[in-house]
């Protein structure tokens, strides 16, 4: 039993940190916040070259055949940088295609995604504030061997830059997940403006949009997306929280009031201690879940819900307390703290909020 990173995993983490410190500085993030597209093509291509996009994809697709732990490591670092990028939904969709997709779908998408020429996303919500199967209203009708989709998806991350969207839809008695190209007729994407411009969300309207050949099987695929999406979001929230903690601690060491560093006041030091506790527990939750899902452990799905439920609350507390520790300066736009605060906040209600995952937990453990 070994809960620590392997040398390779540590290496990956360090290089990711170094890369993002250089290419995803707060200044870059702010520039992308103001950018209509909201993400950087250059950065995306560099991620592809670094092998990040194919990290968990098979070698024949140009990937590195690594797993969720490595993916979570990158997601934590991306969250730490509040990096605006379609990384999370893209790799999530890619893993689903790899797991459930047809040969044609794999050939069409996996190399393109690993190579950085395609982006993808998943449409897990509709108008209802719900992540449950029951909330899927979008319908898929069979027409001439093709699935034709009609419905509206809400809060689809990075849909406006995605080439492929995985769309859960009611197909007869079951809910299946379909692959829709954004270029297909009948697909329209309307971007929203949200508190964190680093996570761009859109409303996706499907008006008789034709899905690509083949479908991802029901239930399983949706659970897969929700569970791995939850772990990915938790990893990003963890990164954002860790960044806020680091900034708060550094500030508390140098900022002086009443003739002493504020970190020497119990009110501040104890707050920082509580923040560290939450960050460390969040780390345990994220990587336990990533490892368990990857290795098909019995409690993998449970651990995914535990991580999202726990880290959603923990990162909110940590990032909020960091503002309080900073005082006024932490409330200013020029200071970078809010970039990470808002990133954690943006991910709280995505891929299932804490309440929903707590309900999933009870469904699993209290029958």
């Amino acid at each position, binding site marked *: 039993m070994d809960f620590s990173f392997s040398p390779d995993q540590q290496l990956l983490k360090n290089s990711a940190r170094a890369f993002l410190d250089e290419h995803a500085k707060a200044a870059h993030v702010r520039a992308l916040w103001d950018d209509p597209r909201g993400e950087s093509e250059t950065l995306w291509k560099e991620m592809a070259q670094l092998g990040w996009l194919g990290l968990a994809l098979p070698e024949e697709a140009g990937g590195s055949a690594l797993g969720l732990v490595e993916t979570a490591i990158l997601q934590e670092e991306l969250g730490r940088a509040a990096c605006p990028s379609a990384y999370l939904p893209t790799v999530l969709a890619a893993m689903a295609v790899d797991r459930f997709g047809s040969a044609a779908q794999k050939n069409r998408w996996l190399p393109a995604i690993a190579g950085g020429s395609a982006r993808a996303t998943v449409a897990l919500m509709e108008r209802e*504030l719900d992540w449950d199967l029951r909330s899927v209203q979008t319908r898929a009708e069979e027409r001439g061997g093709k699935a034709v989709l009609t419905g509206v998806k809400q809060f689809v991350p990075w849909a406006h830059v995605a080439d492929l969207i995985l769309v859960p839809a009611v197909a007869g008695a079951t809910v299946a997940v379909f692959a829709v190209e954004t270029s297909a007729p009948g697909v329209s994407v309307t971007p929203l403006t949200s508190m964190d411009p680093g996570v761009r969300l859109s*409303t996706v309207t499907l008006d008789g949009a034709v899905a690509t050949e083949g479908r991802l099987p029901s239930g399983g695929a949706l659970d897969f997306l929700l569970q791995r999406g939850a772990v990915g979001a938790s990893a990003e929230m963890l990164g954002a929280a860790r960044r806020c903690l680091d900034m708060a601690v550094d500030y508390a060491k140098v900022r002086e009031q009443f003739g002493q560093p504020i970190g020497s006041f119990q009110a501040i030091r104890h707050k920082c201690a509580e923040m560290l506790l939450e960050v460390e527990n969040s780390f345990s939750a994220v990587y336990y879940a990533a490892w368990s899902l990857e290795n098909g452990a019995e409690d993998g799905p449970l651990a995914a819900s535990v991580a999202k439920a726990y880290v959603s609350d923990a990162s909110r507390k940590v990032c909020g307390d960091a503002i309080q520790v900073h005082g006024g300066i932490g409330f200013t736009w020029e200071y970078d703290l809010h970039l990470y605060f808002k990133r954690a906040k943006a991910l709280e209600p995505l891929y299932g909020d804490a309440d929903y995952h707590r309900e999933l937990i009870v469904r699993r453990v209290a029958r």
Partner: protein
Amino acid sequence: MDLNLSPEDRAFRDQTRRWLEANVPRTELKTLEERRAWHRTMFEAGYVGMAWPKEYGGQGATPMKVAIVADEMARANAPAPINGLGIGFIGPTIIIHGTAAQKERYLKKILSAEEIWCQLYSEPNSGSDLASLRTRAEDKGEHFLVNGQKIWTSGGHISDWGILLARTDPNVAKHRGISCFLLNMRQPGVEVRPLKQITGSAEFNEVFMTNARVEKSDLIGRLGQGWEIAQTTLGFERGGNSIARVTRYASAFERLVDAAKKLKRGGKPLLEDPLVRAKLGRVYAEMEVQRYAALRVLSMLQKGDSPGAASSITKLSYSEFEKRYYELCLEILGPYGQVTDGGLEESTLDVDSSSGVRSSWAYAFLWARAGTIYSGSSEIQKNVIGERVLGLPKEIRADRVKS
């Protein structure tokens, strides 16, 4: 104990309500001139500076009447009169500590908002520890020369005058070297820059003073009395607005319930979701308690007792509540609560944030983070409560150990 309004106060409330219904501007006030005009209308109707003594153009109104007007304005969603700081505590400061000439020169124009005022207290390195401020005011014989930087100045960009704390004697213990001045903001030595918040808008300013000039006649009180003056006046108004504040929370709550009716989960309105109901019940209970507590403070003020250090309890209570409140709102609304533009109608619910700005849930949520920081952070309030209300021993602090 009698929580009924007196017949007189009830009559005054009804009359105020009628007046507001008839006079509140139907459209949002955009320009400074429009806001000045609205201010003048309220002033002429006797709703501005009510608490001021008659001899200075006020009506010596009771705290209850003042609170009623603030509350009715919140209820009617009326824009605040401009020059709030000038009327709320700068005028009263001049009334208490000013010279006859100063009263003559400034008070009337504060009431009429002919001249708009701001407060120049906080500095980048003096947040909680205000007494450590560094802005210098040098005695140049017939005037003072001011150099330094101030921050968290609200309305700085539209202000004609500011009340300023500056150090006049660097050689005495830090509290004792501070004096209080009236600074003309309309001079070359004063530069005002907007200070953008995490909300994305700039409710505050930074003010840079480079050889700014203050007339000898614009010193308030004695040299070195600045700290004492700031202390006596910082407390002004706290409590007075708290009923109105709760009324604003309540109108946000109505909008929250509207949203919970429109948004659905499992085919049913969120309002039928027991978890959502539990959260609504929790915030409503806390909100009501804020209202009861505000009434208690008001009843104290009515009797002429000042809550004193206990007003720290009020500040701590509402600011921490407000933070929890909007966190719970965003919990309930999910991603809808974070959308600022372009979403469904559900996602563009207008609320009145406690900053008074009509805006999105996201704005109100972010703004609420300021409440536990400005005018004495929660940590400072707890120190005050512990020391001055509970009488716990002073903490051992570097600046105390040294002295």
